[in-house]
């Protein structure tokens, strides 16, 4: 199949980058006749330290800046298209476009809109309510942001584009995502407002009840593929299915089809998208648990929901849609060396963004469900069906059908 | 004989002495004028016997020498309406509430109390509704100063030099 863009891997790349940079630093210190300091910079500990520093920065920048802004941009573009909106079409055009030099036009791509929003949020005052529980009020956004960033520590974008390789990667992602509800309920409580309190309670109730089918579906996938390692999980899905050209993605196996649907619904609920966005139902609870936050703190809470959406969609792609596997024809070899035309990262991002777009599409075309109905769907429908999925997966595994 | 004439005839027959004034406004609309003490009796008769089921409006009018509470009733089956003017003396603005028969009387009665200061006896929830609870005036009364003529004030200020 297609190869990865990053070789050997992110950390390795960063290591060579660090070595080059530190070599320049050493040369400067040598020129300043400080050879001791120069060779200290080249010592292995320092190199490793800077390597991981740079790798972390690259990963966080990539995830939280590039992908976060892209997901936001995709969402805005898509719902503007769906709703016949004009606003988002207004944006600064490309600087090199000579045709639209007059400034703001409605033919721009609108990509800078998010950055403008971010700048606006940064300029706003961070208001802390007088009667809020200060410690928890400040801790809640930090927990949400850090737990979301934590996901990307083990999140593989391709065979080589990852930060660390953990054998229990999927479990790690789920554990990191499961810290969110606690922060939400903390935020809801500490704002000392009835809307946030109701929103926080709703969020906690909903996330508790939807995390269970989510994890049960993962259990079914783990049963079939026999591993918790995302890399092996993708490798299992790589071969073609029973002599056809259809790849053996988990979604094509009979028990996992159901699991895919359940996982998708539970994911939408986890991400608080519109059919299940009762914690922040803006018509009834103003903004739910984020009501009292302002400025960039609100920006964090709001933006990292999109990042969670991205991470969740990526998890869905890894578990069910074959991860970074692309079609076979995407690679050709020159002199026996495989050259990817479209690298694995491209396929992974393509699938992830498609899933994100489906989520956006759903959320802007149906009304929101009531809180008790959400819980009813979760407990009465999804959990039994998820258990059924596990049963089916176990049967298939035992009989060796898949 | 139109529907309102039939209703009026029945009313005249039932309450020969109570109707101070009765007549037909336009086809389908009747009008009687009564004293405030007979209101409940006549309205109950209108609702139960004549089928005027919908109390659409309660308006209070300040005629300087008396108040009038004007009730409009509708009968949905043929669309005939009925207007009942209840006369209230100016020095004692009290009238019986109709909340027992029409729950829809609650809000209009509160509004009439709020703006005109007519007290509805036996109203379960007689509070101010539009104006703030600590407001002390009844603005729709005719003795409430209606309008401050700003131009007049400025003209007077120019003329007299202040005040």
């Amino acid at each position: 199949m297609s190869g990865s863009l990053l070789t050997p891997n992110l950390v390795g790349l960063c290591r060579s980058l660090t070595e080059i940079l530190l070599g320049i630093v050493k040369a400067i210190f040598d020129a300043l006749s400080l050879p001791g300091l120069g060779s200290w910079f080249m010592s292995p500990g320092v190199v490793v330290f800077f390597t991981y520093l740079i790798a972390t920065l690259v990963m966080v920048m990539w995830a939280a800046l590039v992908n976060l802004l892209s997901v936001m941009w995709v969402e805005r573009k898509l719902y503007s298209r769906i709703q016949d909106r004009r606003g988002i079409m207004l944006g600064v055009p490309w600087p090199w476009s000579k045709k639209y030099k007059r400034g703001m036009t409605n033919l721009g791509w609108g990509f800078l809109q998010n950055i403008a929003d971010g700048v606006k949020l940064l300029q706003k005052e961070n208001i802390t309510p007088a009667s809020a529980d200060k410690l928890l009020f400040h801790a809640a956004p930090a927990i949400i942001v850090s737990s979301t960033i934590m996901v990307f520590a083990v999140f593989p974008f391709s065979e080589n584009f990852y930060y660390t390789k953990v054998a229990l990667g999927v479990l790690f992602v789920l554990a990191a995502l499961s810290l969110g509800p606690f922060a939400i309920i903390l935020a809801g409580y500490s704002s000392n407002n009835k809307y946030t309190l109701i929103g926080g309670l709703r969020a906690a109730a909903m996330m508790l009840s939807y995390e269970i089918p989510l994890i049960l579906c993962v259990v079914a996938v783990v049963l079939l593929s026999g591993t918790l390692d995302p890399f092996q999980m993708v490798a299992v899905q790589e071969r073609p299915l029973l002599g056809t050209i259809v790849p053996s993605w988990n979604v094509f196996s009979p028990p996992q089809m159901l699991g895919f649907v359940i996982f998708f619904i539970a994911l939408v609920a986890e991400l608080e998208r519109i059919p299940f966005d009762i914690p922040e139902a803006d018509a009834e609870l103003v903004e739910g648990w984020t009501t009292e936050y302002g400025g960039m703190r609100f920006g964090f809470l709001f933006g990292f929901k999109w990042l969670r959406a991205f991470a969740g969609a990526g998890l869905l792609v890894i578990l069910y849609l074959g991860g970074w596997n692309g079609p076979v024809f995407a690679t050709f070899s020159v002199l026996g060396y495989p050259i990817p035309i479209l690298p694995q990262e491209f396929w992974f991002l393509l699938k992830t963004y498609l899933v994100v777009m489906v989520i956006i599409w759903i959320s802007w075309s149906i009304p929101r469900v009531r809180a008790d109905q959400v819980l009813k769907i979760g407990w009465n429908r999804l959990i039994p069906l998820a258990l059924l999925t596990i049963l089916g997966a176990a049967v298939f595994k035992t009989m060796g059908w898949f | 004989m139109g529907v309102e004439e039939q209703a009026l005839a029945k009313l005249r027959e039932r309450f020969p002495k109570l109707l101070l004034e009765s007549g037909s406004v336009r086809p389908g609309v009747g009008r009687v004028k009564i004293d405030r003490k007979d209101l409940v009796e006549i309205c109950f008769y209108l609702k139960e016997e004549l089928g005027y089921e919908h109390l659409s409006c309660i308006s209070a009018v300040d005629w300087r020498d008396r108040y009038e509470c004007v009730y409009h009733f509708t009968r949905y089956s043929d669309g005939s309406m009925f207007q009942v003017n209840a006369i209230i003396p100016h020095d004692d603005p009290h009238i019986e509430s109709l909340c027992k028969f029409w729950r829809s009387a609650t809000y209009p009665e509160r509004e009439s109390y709020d703006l005109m200061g007519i007290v509805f006896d036996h109203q379960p929830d007689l509070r101010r509704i539009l104006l703030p609870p600590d407001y002390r005036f009844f603005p729709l009364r005719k003795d409430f100063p209606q309008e401050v003529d700003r131009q007049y004030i400025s003209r007077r200020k120019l003329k007299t030099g202040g005040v």
Partner: protein
Amino acid sequence: MAEFWVNMGPQHPMTHGLWNLRIKVDGETIVDAEPIIGYLHRGVEKISEVREFQKVIVLTDRLCYVSSITWSHAYCLAVEELMGIEIPERGKYLRVISLEIQRIASHLMWLAAFGADIGLLTMLLYALRERELFLDLIEIMAGLRLNSNYTRVGGVRNDVPADFEKSCQRVIAHFLKKLDEYEDMMENSKTFLMRTQGIGKLSKEDAINWGVTGPNLRGSGADVDLRRTIPYEVYDQIDWEPAIEKDCDCYARSIVRMREMRESCKIVLDALKKMPPGPYRMKPPRRAEGEAFRATEDSRGEALFYVAADGDDRPYRVKIRSPIFCTLAAVPQMMRGHKVADVVSIMGSIDICVGEIDK
């Protein structure tokens, strides 16, 4: 869980204006509710006592910015009754056309707000997009989009341009197609049914007793449309059917409004066809004496104006009966026992307009 009061308003996305709904919740269940209004009280009734008859129309236009023509028309009818004048036939037809266009625009505003309430933001933008077309029609008729000041005592302000019928037909043909789309989005959507069916029940007897009127009453199964029960203008010469649903819940109320939009389209086209040539306005007398009232079918219910005059050139007393003011009294009963999220369905389905509540 402890019961506690939640203030929904005065500034809350659900309120569609400036009022306050205090709900007492037990967890998520509503135990009690109490509307608190008066934040927007402008004293229209008092101001109109010092204005001449014709000049009050400016105020009645602003009673409800969503459906200004229907309010001015109700006032004009009452004043014409008071003065005892009969307006020209063409004026009546023009009034009916403007009323129905305004009704469609108002119902589209309701649809937009209802969609946003139950979380369907797409509906908001779609409905507002189509509302623009009807506001454009009103602009062609009256010269203004919102507070159009079109209906006058004694007729309407001006005649319509020659090609008005054609633009009306074009807009309505386009709108009827879009209306099918809305029905797909709303009535045929499972989520919408989950949110509205069985919510906010108000039986027919209760509705009449509470004084609920208009589409809300027709959603409760009562065959009451004042355009038909107490015909005014030329509604008795036009073919149309009132929309009546028997379910008594939010769903029925929304269906009634959707069907009413179709009926209004029919009325507009029919009235345009039957409209006779001739004068559209007459000169009303300056002074009047006595008292008069007229009830009309506003886009939200029964709008009744009671006008009394003492022989001056201005009304002695104007009383406005606003439909939502009376409907609001029934809201606590509709809400008891439902969930917090149903507040928005119920309030959205009865189509609040604060301008007319607070007068």
